[in-house]
């Protein structure tokens, strides 16, 4: 019983971090109908930037978010402008899927060239510290990673709900044509949306790098999990992605505790297939548009 509760706590903490990474991806889909296969690679880029800032300049990984998130925001805006906006033809959805995969390959190539393929991780002094609460272990890094994710998710939510930009984003998600008729600049919304999605990747990368060993090829592993989270939650629904991330986090850590860590990732996929069997649109996905 104790081990089970411990696993659930761990799962919720991990799930919070996945929620942050997946929210960026699902938002990009909501706005542009682009399944961003580069999200995993951008997260690895965030992790390596944090790693360099930490080992090169001694900047704490949590503080370095102030540098990496704006950088990745700009990169995201640039990528959208240069590679996704010019796409045309009748299969823009499929083409953009392939283009984002190409971006992922390119980022992987650059990272392998600069850092090599050896596994590395970010080890600040407190990396292995933990608190004991009612007999349960809570790792300091996981706790702060979870808190940062919550704060950033709340900030993202406030941005979407309270600002003019947020209103134009939600309008674009619901109906791009009408939104444009009402004066929403769809191109600007798309570019900034892609930038915001990449910025969440920077934050996710810093945290991921402290919790796991990684190399440039780790993005395949990451993207496969993020995609299951995003689909389980219903593509385009940020709320759904958060629930799905926590559910997935708990399931995989419970499976790791009671069965074997080997099968924990596998549980992800099985849950997804079972849900799709019953609800092809995911847990919270609306059949029509407008789920953000």
């Amino acid at each position, binding site marked *: 019983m104790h081990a089970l509760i411990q696993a659930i706590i761990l799962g919720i903490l991990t799930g919070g971090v996945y929620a942050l990474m997946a929210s960026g991806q699902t938002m990009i889909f909501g706005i542009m109908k682009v399944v961003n296969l580069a999200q995993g690679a951008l997260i690895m880029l965030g992790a390596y930037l944090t790693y360099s800032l930490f080992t090169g300049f001694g900047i704490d990984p949590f503080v370095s978010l102030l540098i990496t998130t704006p950088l990745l925001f700009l990169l995201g805006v640039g990528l959208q402008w240069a590679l996704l906006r010019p796409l045309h033809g009748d299969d823009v959805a499929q083409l953009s899927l392939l283009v984002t995969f190409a971006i992922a390959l390119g980022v992987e190539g650059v990272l392998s060239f600069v850092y090599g*393929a050896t596994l590395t991780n970010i080890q600040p002094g407190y990396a292995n510290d933990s608190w004991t609460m009612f007999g349960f272990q809570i790792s300091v890094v996981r706790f702060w990673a979870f808190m940062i994710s919550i704060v950033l998710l709340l900030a993202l939510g406030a941005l979407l709900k309270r600002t003019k930009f947020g209103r134009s984003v939600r309008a674009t998600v619901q109906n791009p044509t009408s939104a444009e008729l009402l004066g929403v600049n769809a191109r600007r919304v798309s570019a900034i949306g892609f930038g915001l999605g990449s910025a969440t990747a920077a934050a996710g990368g810093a945290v991921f790098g402290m919790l796991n060993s990684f190399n440039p090829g780790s993005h395949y592993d990451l993207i496969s999990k993020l995609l299951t989270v995003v689909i389980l939650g219903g593509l385009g629904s940020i709320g759904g992605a958060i629930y799905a991330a926590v559910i997935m986090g708990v399931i995989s850590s419970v499976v790791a505790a009671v069965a074997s860590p080997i099968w924990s990732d596998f549980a992800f*996929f099985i849950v997804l297939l079972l849900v799709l069997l019953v609800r092809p649109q995911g847990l919270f996905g609306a059949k029509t548009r407008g789920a953000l």
Partner: protein
Amino acid sequence: MKSLVSPAGALRAGIFFAILIAIPLVGGPSWLLNMLIFTVMYAALSSSWNIVGGYAGYPSLGHAAFFGIGAYAVGITFSKSVGAGYSPFWSLPVIGLAVALIAVPVGWISMRTRQDVFAIVTITILFIAQTLAFNLNGLTGGAQGTSVAAPPFPAGTYDWPFYFAMVVILAVTMLISHLISNSKFGLALLTVRADEDKAQGIGVRVTGVKVSAFALSAGMVAMVGGIWAYYVGFIYPQFAVDPLITIGIVLMTFLGGKGTLWGPVLGAFILVPAQEYFAQAFGASELYLLAYALVFIVIMLFLPRGIIPSIAMARHRRWQRLAGEAGSTVPAAGGTSTDAMDPTATMTEGTR
């Protein structure tokens, strides 16, 4: 009744395969035959993918899973002995059939979703297969991989059986594609691609049609995987079930033109040699990934329709313009009208 094979089409296919068969007989450097094996392999994979991704419009990103299953089927069955060396080849139809049967429930579940979601669901199928290959140690050997017994072929013509097996598979796949595109089944697939709900409305059995296409395509891919496993000898999870295989297939089909007979083949014959060249030129560093990504993006940005449909379109436009000049009453084709007739335009090009 219209003949199934036009003289020009038969001639084109005849010349193409005659050249393919003649190359090893004439001789040439051994790297050429090695590269050709992979080129023909990708041509066969892309043609198989095209059945479901091109004709039916369901862009599966999970085909590497079936490739891997085929590879492991050969690897596990023939790990001790391959007899006179040809038994793995004879086992391929059985493997293809078995994998096609496995693909029926997989396709049925994943094809409940459409478009992007389908692409993602199929990519998770790929990762499921990879996780299984890594973790079912008893069966697959896990990360240490498994190996096929060495075939007793003479050194001088060692590559020949693999090469000819790939050529035969390619011929079979192209024949199937051709038959499909000329059949009622092919028409049903096209209606699924154009508008699935309307297709169902007019009485097309959409689920049966698309799941059959998926299973057929998966079975063919598994057979190719079997030959690949036998040729490379060692099978590791990360190479047998590799996202790059899937993406390579899709990219080649897009480059040549999806939904056409020759497009996937053309795409493979352009991209595989290019890929080999990059691996040679930048092999030591990981920059070849970057080079590949750039080629990728250039294709998507400048040739989104693919080579064969673009040529067909250009010819069609010129023909219309000439007709317009002659009659001077028929206006030149506008963007809208050509777009609207696109599915039929690519289809007729594919069937010729």
